[in-house]
């Protein structure tokens, strides 16, 4: 970094982005990275990306049909999530925000359990966080990054090798909690991978209005650990970078900040109208960089994937979609008593009273009808 009379200068921050695959799917030579992925791994990665996209589409469809209150589409970010998730061990924990469908599916969470959140069945989702090592969805921006930091610090204190993956967006980098989490994790050199999906927008706000930083990755320097920019639509690049970050974490070298440069091709949520703030060209440009197309071309060119396998995955994705529809369409609410059941380990007297009041009301409603 050049020093202007002793000043550190943002204009000298490297902005290069790690890429292994060109958009046409050809492997870039001499990147210094060599993914240690066998054929089965590569096909599994392909499979997760395709399944996630299909389940995601179903989320959007179901919202359009009135079956979900709202939905936050993932489309375009499959490589970032699957590449990163593939670098984790089963026992590692994932701390999602609200767009981590692909990561959730990699953790064997039924997408139905995610969509129930958006249906309004239950806040947080319906899965067991301990069974899946996948925290509940977290809507308040950046707050979950602190949970990941705390989890990582606890693992470190415990001498465990568990890694925590903190998922957040470009907009989230502006929140105080994102700052505090990276700072805490840095101080303890905790095994945390900070995984920022820079999809260029926070609802309508483009990155240029979110921060003047030359990259998001450079923010890591302020916390004393490395940061890296990776092409978020290149699943192999996302994998190798995450693998390095996970290795560092597991070996006790501390956190890494990954900035996966990608694009949110859908609306922020189904309630959003992106035509108000972004152009068609922008969208088209990123559609041309589709992560699944890119990876498929690579697999095809290398002769790794067969039409048969593609068909198998296509069939599986249809099954998932059908399963989602079957479970979500017309699903009833949870029984009302659950509202009182989980507030504390034991409901208080006042809560019990209120619960009785509700039953009386509900009985009254039934009498009327």
């Amino acid at each position, binding site marked *: 970094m050049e020093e202007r009379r002793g000043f550190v200068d943002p204009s000298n921050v490297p902005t290069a982005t790690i890429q292994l695959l060109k958009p046409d799917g050809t492997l870039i030579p001499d990147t210094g990275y060599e993914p240690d992925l066998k054929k089965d791994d590569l096909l599994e990665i392909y499979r997760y990306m395709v399944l996630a996209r299909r389940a995601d589409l179903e989320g959007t469809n179901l919202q359009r049909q009135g079956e979900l*209150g*709202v939905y936050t589409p993932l489309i375009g970010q499959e490589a970032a999530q699957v590449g990163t998730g593939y670098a984790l061990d089963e026992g590692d924990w994932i701390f999602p925000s609200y767009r981590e469908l692909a990561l959730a599916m990699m953790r064997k969470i039924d997408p139905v359990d995610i969509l129930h*959140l*958006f*249906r*309004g*069945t*239950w*806040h*947080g989702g319906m899965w067991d966080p301990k069974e899946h090592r996948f925290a509940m969805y977290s*809507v*308040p*921006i950046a707050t979950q990054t602190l949970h990941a930091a705390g989890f990582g610090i606890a693992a470190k204190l415990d001498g465990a090798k568990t890694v925590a993956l903190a998922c957040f967006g470009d*907009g*989230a980098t*502006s*929140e*105080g*909690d994102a700052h505090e989490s990276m700072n805490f994790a840095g101080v303890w050199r905790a095994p945390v991978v900070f995984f920022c999906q820079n999809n260029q927008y*926070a*609802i*309508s*706000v483009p990155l240029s*209005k*979110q*921060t003047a930083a030359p990259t998001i990755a450079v923010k890591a320097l302020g916390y004393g650990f490395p940061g890296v920019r990776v092409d978020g639509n290149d699943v192999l690049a996302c994998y190798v970078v995450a693998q390095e970050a996970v290795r560092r974490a597991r070996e006790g070298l501390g956190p890494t900040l990954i900035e996966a440069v990608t694009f949110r091709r859908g609306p922020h949520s189904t*309630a*959003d*109208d992106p035509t*108000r*703030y972004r152009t068609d060209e922008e969208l088209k440009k990123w559609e041309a960089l589709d992560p699944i197309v890119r990876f498929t071309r690579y697999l095809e060119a290398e002769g790794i994937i067969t039409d048969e396998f593609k068909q198998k995955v296509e069939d599986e994705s249809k099954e998932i979609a059908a399963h989602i529809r079957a479970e979500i369409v017309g699903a009833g*609410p*949870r029984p*009302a008593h659950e*509202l*009182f059941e989980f*507030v504390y380990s034991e409901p*208080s007297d*006042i*809560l019990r009273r*209120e*619960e009785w009041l*509700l039953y009386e*009301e*509900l009985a*009254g*409603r039934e009498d009327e009808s």
Partner: protein
Amino acid sequence: MPAMTMAAALNEALRHSMKADQHVVVLGEDVGKLGGVFRITDKLQQEFGEDRVLDTPLAESGIVGTAIGMAMYGLRPVAEMQFDGFTYPAFEQIVSHLAKYGSRSRGRMRLPIVVRIPYGGGIGAVEHHSESLEAYFTHTAGLKVVTPSTPSDAYSLLIRSIEDPDPVMFLEPKRRYWIREDFELEPNGLPIGKAAIRNEGTDVTLITYGPSVRTCQEAVEEAAADGVSIELIDLRSLIPLDLETIMESVKKTGRAVVVHEAQVTGGFGGEIAARIMEDDFLSLHAPVVRVGGFDIPYPPAKLEDVHLPDLDRVLDAVDKVLNY
């Protein structure tokens, strides 16, 4: 003029204030090009430019904290919190500075800031988008707490809040954004701190505010059909509180019910109930009964209807105080 929604009325109020005073600026997440997720700031950036309508980074403490700095410079910022549940990151700036700077500076540095917050439930939203957080502010000396229930009042109260020399937490009942009313685009005569009697009555005083006013209006009609005459008070401003209007009514009726969406325990209803009792115990023929949400985190959308005070819950309470 044709009937206008509360959302449009708020938009017009901002427009009015920005035209009237060039020191008024609007800031928040997505308030610019997008016009806010509820379109309350729709087209304002086009009209007034990026220097008057600021899309901020995603950081609520930052929004309120910089609004304070802007006010210190001499501007009159109107800050938007995107949803009730996302106000909490700004809590320190609100409690430790916004509320206290006037006192701390011995009145020399007043902060004429409005913090607009769409609040309350009933819109089928995901978690953190349906919070009734007014009681956190009514317990914080130095803040004014205002909440309209009709489009015309939304228009007037927002203009008056922007003109106010003190910080105002302006709580917008988001489930009522789309109710319509036919009215002149002129601030009405009611200042901040004055309640409105929405219905005169003699049997019971029903006290409420914001989103619950509508529910209570239905209760008034339903009760009237049963021959019960309810006096309906819409507080409009919780701080300052128009105790005079409340007490006059209770003296007349001898019975009161307070309604809000927030969980009952620790809610503003307790404050009103306690004040009524303290101020005029002897007029009371029955205990003041509170109607509100349960003492639970705001429920998922599919269960919010069992949580929110509805017509029946209000009428049950009215019955209770009548038949005490």
